[in-house]
């Protein structure tokens, strides 16, 4: 599949997206709301298919963003899916680990560092913070200073 075919394939999930951007060659950004993130991720991983790279959790001003990064290795394209969690006080999103084992660790990490809840995660336990790290302190949140 070349770049154009990839773009056409991605538009197959357009109804669940709010925006598609390609700011430069080989870098595509897809935008969606949290409730559609699971369906879009499943499409990207299973139907396109793309290789999952990692996810970045961000405490933005009024919401949380999770950017799921994927790679299409045929053309070297990085496809980034931005899922917006609008409820800043109780951030929750569906876990993608049930169909994508590669995402298990990063969801646990985002839970540790940002306090995002991942519904239906197969194994939500503390991953990278120390055993005696206080509950409820999420280091990557804006309110936690260096």
């Amino acid at each position: 599949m070349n770049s154009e075919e990839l773009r056409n394939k991605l538009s197959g999930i357009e109804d669940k997206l709010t925006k598609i951007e390609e700011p430069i060659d080989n870098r595509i950004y897809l935008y969606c709301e949290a409730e559609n993130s699971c369906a879009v991720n499943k499409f990207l991983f299973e139907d396109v298919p793309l290789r999952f790279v990692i996810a970045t959790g961000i405490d933005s001003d009024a919401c949380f963003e999770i950017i799921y990064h994927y790679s299409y290795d045929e053309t070297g394209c990085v496809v980034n899916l931005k899922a917006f969690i609008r409820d800043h006080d109780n951030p929750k999103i569906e876990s993608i680990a049930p169909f994508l084992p590669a995402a298990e660790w990063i969801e646990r990490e985002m839970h540790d560092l940002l306090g995002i809840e991942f519904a239906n995660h197969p194994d939500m336990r503390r991953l990278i913070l120390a055993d005696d790290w206080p509950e409820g302190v999420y280091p990557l949140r804006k309110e936690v200073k260096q």
Partner: protein
Amino acid sequence: MKKTIRQPVIPVGPLHPLQEEMEYFQLTVDGETVTDIDMRISYNHRGIEKISESLQFDQVPLLVSRICGICSASHPLAYVQAVEEIASVTVPDRARYVRTIIAELERIHSHVLWVGLAGHFIGYDTVFMWAWKYREPVLDMLEEITGNRNNYGNLLIGGCREDIGDELIPKMSKDLDNIEKKMDMLIKAVTDDPVIHARLKGVGVLTKEDAVRFAVTGPTARGSGVDIDVRHDDAYAAYEELDWQVCSVPEGDVFAKAVVRLLEVLEAIKIIRQAIRKLPKGPIKTKVKEIPPGEGTGRAEAPRGETFHYVRSDGGNRPVRHKARAPSYVNVPSFKASCIGQKIADVTITLAAVDPCYSCTERVAVVDKRTDEVLYDYDMLLRLSREKTEGIRKSF
């Protein structure tokens, strides 16, 4: 009889068993066979992504080269490329070639380090000593070019900090010839040994399907027939202009991963020779005045696999968000697939085959969760591994 074994963690190098407490690996075994494996990581969490937000863009390469000492060129390379994407920077040709040379030298020293360790785990301490001895000239070369054996500090947004002086080139070519001779000898010693074949083939197999499910990268993927390589797929630095091959083998066992690494050492020497010969004249860096608002992704093929960085800028002089993903983060969890069904004697070499960063390769005293009885300590695991090798040797 099912026993749950808990492995305390000790972030000590593979030579030294560790001890008490700290959970890291949790193995469940049924007799001599592993039926489940779990891991806890936390020892090395230093909060790098948060520290990044308090540093200026051009200070971050110094931070990220210390994420992992053995991949200390790959992390800054991925980071600066992410920022160069935001600022639409064109890196001068000479800088791209210098980046390539340093990255490939790092690949050689890292893979040879691994060969030594793998040898140690299966009882070939001579291989360990040879490998680490013949690795030294590579480190000497890196020191001559960048000023340090490890932690090169040579990457800048916009190019490289230090140039490779023309007067160094003839010596580098001669040193490469010597390195190649020693590497050839080491590779033959490993690949021609029927005991090593018998010891490592069929051990710790990661199937292609599992390699995809766990999204592994690097030799861990290429040793299972998934021929992805960032240098080829999303070419950066000077790789597109040089003649080289992606090394991939389908079997998925420890031997396959070893072969991929050994072949990559030879390819790396080939790449460096071409890069030295074709090294363009010109500046080594381009001035970057500011980083506009935006976001970028950068990646590099580290010895262990794909290093991926995401950076977001709001126009200020610090990153608003910086995500750094090391290849081991996706490779290590694949133990769940490659360790299950293995014998206890093969655990150390299967774990090592993914080439996790030292700090991840903790060794353990395996303790029964219910009774706190030490069932296997590192020494015992190592001894079991070596005894298996001896048994195979005797049958030849």
